[in-house]
């Protein structure tokens, strides 16, 4: 239907990625104001169960062997078909390794405009508007979502994923579609990241270090704090790039997304790529010598002090508090 809002479900190896729920939440939000349907589009093989907690009105499910993993060629063929048949008002994809691979191609094939980097939608004068983030988050761009059909790639941060989940399962329609043929892309295998001792995304207390740590030999100080707190060390990209901590400890867009109870950001400036990975933390305390550091926009508490001065004192007081 012309008013529908479509969401392409992203899933890898049997797990639905969080961005899917963010997109569903966005779609739900818009749909409430436009009286539209939220349609989740799920491509896969034997993957219907994944849709059980989607906050969608209906799920269009295409089942085929070629759709088992994410193959851009196969997804493109099937989606082109679906979108041509349904002509939704908005089709939302993730601005990710999955969504960004195909949204552009579809834009050209269907002749529909594409908006990327979208963080949220809003209604103004009865028309849907997009709010996108560009220039590394330094500039926001707002504009009308073109009609009749517009493709959008979304980034996280504007909606809580919980709002995209539902306790009741949506209606699932298995659709027919022409079989994908002449595939030029295939998947050989997945390669796991290096095995480490700890999965930071499962830790409730994280001590995160950034450029402010200065030198490798200062990391010991942060480790002691982490030990005192019963938490684990993680880092922003610059620290990992130096080789001081392994990539499995990296938090951010190219690393892990974490949602601990406590996130202590030490010497981290708060660039969007990092914030993307930790902004959902329950309690964020940031320490940075620069009072204008963007991390203070996302933290609940902050202190303008050199982390090297604070760390040993903080460790001591925490040990005292625990022992006493």
């Amino acid at each position, binding site marked *: 239907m012309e008013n529908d809002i479509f969401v392409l479900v992203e899933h890898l190896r049997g797990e639905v990625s969080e961005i899917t729920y963010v997109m569903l939440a966005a779609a739900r939000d818009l749909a409430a104001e436009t009286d539209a349907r939220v349609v989740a589009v799920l491509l896969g093989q034997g993957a219907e169960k994944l849709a059980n907690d989607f906050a969608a009105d209906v799920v269009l499910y295409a089942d085929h062997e070629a759709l088992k993993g994410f193959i851009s060629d196969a997804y493109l063929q099937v989606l082109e078909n679906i979108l041509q048949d349904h002509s939704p008002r908005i089709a939302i994809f993730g601005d990710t390794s999955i969504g960004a691979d195909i949204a552009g191609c579809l834009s050209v094939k269907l002749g529909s405009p594409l908006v990327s980097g979208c963080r949220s939608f809003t209604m103004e004068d009865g028309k849907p508007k997009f709010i996108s983030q560009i220039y590394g988050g330094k500039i926001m761009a707002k504009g009308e979502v073109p009609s009749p059909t517009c493709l959008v790639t979304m980034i996280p941060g504007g909606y809580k994923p919980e709002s995209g989940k539902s306790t009741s399962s949506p209606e699932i329609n298995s659709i027919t579609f022409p079989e994908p043929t002449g595939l030029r892309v295939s998947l050989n295998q997945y390669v796991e990241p290096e095995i480490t001792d700890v999965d930071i995304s499962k830790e409730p207390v994280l001590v995160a270090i950034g450029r402010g740590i200065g030198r490798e030999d200062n990391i010991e100080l942060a480790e002691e704090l982490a030990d005192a707190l019963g938490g684990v060390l993680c880092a922003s990209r610059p620290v990992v790039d*130096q080789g001081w901590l392994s990539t499995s400890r990296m938090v951010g867009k190219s690393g892990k997304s974490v949602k601990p109870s406590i996130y202590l950001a030490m010497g981290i400036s708060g660039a969007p790529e990092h914030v993307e990975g930790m902004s959902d933390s329950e309690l964020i305390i940031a320490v940075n010598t620069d009072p204008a550091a963007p991390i203070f926009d996302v933290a609940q508490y902050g202190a303008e002090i050199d982390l090297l001065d604070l760390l*040993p004192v903080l460790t001591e007081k925490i040990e005292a508090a625990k022992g006493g």
Partner: protein
Amino acid sequence: MGRGMSKASRLQRLEEILLSSSRGHTIKELADVLEVHRTTVWRDINELSLQAPVQESENRYFIDRKEYLSSIRLSRGESLMLYLALRKMIRQQSHLPPMMVMAMEKLSMALRHPSSVQLAESIQGMKNGQLSTVELARIWEVLVQGWIERITVRITYQEIQTSVVEEYEVQPYQFEPTVQGEGVFLIGHCLSHEALRTFRVDRILSAALTTKRFVRPKDIVIDSMLRHLWGIWYGEELTRVRLRFKDPEVAEQVRKTLWLPSQKVRDLEGGGVEWSARVRDVFELVPWIHGWGSDCEVIEPNELQERMIELKKNHGGVTMTVIDVPREVTFSEAFYQSLQEVLDGERIKVCLQCSSCSGICPLGYAMEYHPRKMISALRAEIFDAVLDTDSVWMCVSCYACTEVCPAKIPLTDGLMTRTKEEMLMAGNVPKELQDALENSQRYGNPLGESPRKRADWAKGLKPEVTIMAKADRPVDVLWFVGDYPSYHPRVQKISKAFCKVLAALGVDFGILGPEEASDGDSQRMAGENGLFEMLAIKNGKAFSKYHFNEIITTDPHAYNALKHKYPEFGISYPVRHYTEFLVDRMEDLKPLLKKQIDATVTFHDPCYLGRVNGIYEEPRMLLQAIPGVELVEMSHNRENSLCCGGGGGGMWLDGFQWEKTQTRLSEWRVCEAVEASGAEVDVRRPPIKEKRRRGLQAEEEKLPTKRILAGACPYEAPRFEDAVKMVEKANHLEVKDIAELLAEAMED
């Protein structure tokens, strides 16, 4: 003795006293003699007993001479000789037996020199990254015990020519280091061969004591064996070797030096010499001959001649025959040529290989190819090997080597900078440095800050700082501010202080602000000549737009570039460093310095102000003009000042250099500053927890006067303040630029 004596020297003295009398001394007696408290003596004895067999009987303490083997008393000069000898050995070793390191540490303590102790510690640190020395230590202990107590040892040994592992029983007679290369040899009677044999200790895979004892025969003539030995491979016959050195300068050197006791040197027509000797195995001479490059020709024997030809062929160099075969120029040769084109560059031909450069280089020990070895490789036409390592990035262009070279070779400007240039061209650059250079290219400063913000530090200052583009009028003095003074928060404070001083003196000055680009000198010394030229021309264009009588700068690197290098591009103005400028105005300045600053101040001579440009006294005169200041000198000062580690790209190689050496030059310097100001310095790396309680510690210590390390270069304040955090007992040391102290001494 007494107060002011460092703990190290006190322990030394204590040891001497405890050795001197077998009756021993009570704690009280020792406390009186050493002029310290009893509890201090108690602690010292505990510490000493870790190193020496201190014994106690009826509350009297002594060391039994018989138990304590090495009770040699050495004068400081003698200790220094041993220390130097050990250093030479350490440089040549790829494995460091713990005994060597311990001896080094003890000698360093005896010399009471913080930097040498740091060196020892650093070597210890380096050693930790090498092959397991536990087995090696064990082997040494067995050999030494066998040698002293005359017990036969059983060893498993890796033969060199067959690569087979054999077991031998040996009576150890003597140890001897090789003349060339990195070996130490065990010479002894081998029971299996029933003859005198030599074994390279690093090819001994295991050693164990047997139950047999031996008596060393008195008529063993080891010396004569050594005479014919040159390093040791197996050989029975003595072979005559004849070498020809044609170049008169080279010949002179050969004539004067004793390489082998049995050598004969014969003059040739035309100024050359022929050198001959009989040796046990000729192939051991190969590295030595190779080092001479084309200056040395093998005449006899044939096998040696062929081997040298083969080696040359593999490295693409000149053949050893007399006929000059036309061939392509090798990379090494081309590079050697290019070095000679630098000012005074031809002096590289007379390098004596004396190793003064490598010895004085503060990070020479951590370079696989230190300066002397670089020249040696150049002559051996294997310079590509130097470029395969990254050791040249340890160089901080401090000019110590150039200063000390007896042949006056322009090492820093010529050899090191050109080598860095080759590395750059090959793209072989550590990431930090790459970023700094790319930032300089793109933004005109290595910090990657926006050029438009270069004068932001001056916003809001009263009186207002004149920016040339806005002022549109001539000024008396153009102040070239520099990168770090413009952008780095710590150094911006110095810039502001300097403004205050200039204003108080009524100086009519202006700055270029956003039109100023990096002076480029450090980037030049890091090998990026093209970038330097680009920056110089940009600055030159800005200069030419305005009228001023002279340029002053607070940055010795900018001073160096503006004075000596910019004129090569036709950009020539009178330039002074701010200390020269202010001393000129001392009559006006002195009366303004009304506030007393009670402090012991030591001045760090910046490399590019002092050693490179000869300005030593002006900074000191300024400091002494401040009431209350007591000026003391560090042990390295003026010409032999120790670099802070920031030059030649060092500012952007910190992580790289730290990884290799586990130490920082700025920390050594801070240790010296602490010692110079009279405090006791403990240079062992303290446990991290104790390090950082800065404010608290200073209070606890309740020092009588302030201690200040003064500098006159923008790299120093941030580097030394970082170092102060890492050195225990340096917590109370303040780091200030002279401009800051002057501003402080002026009334508001």
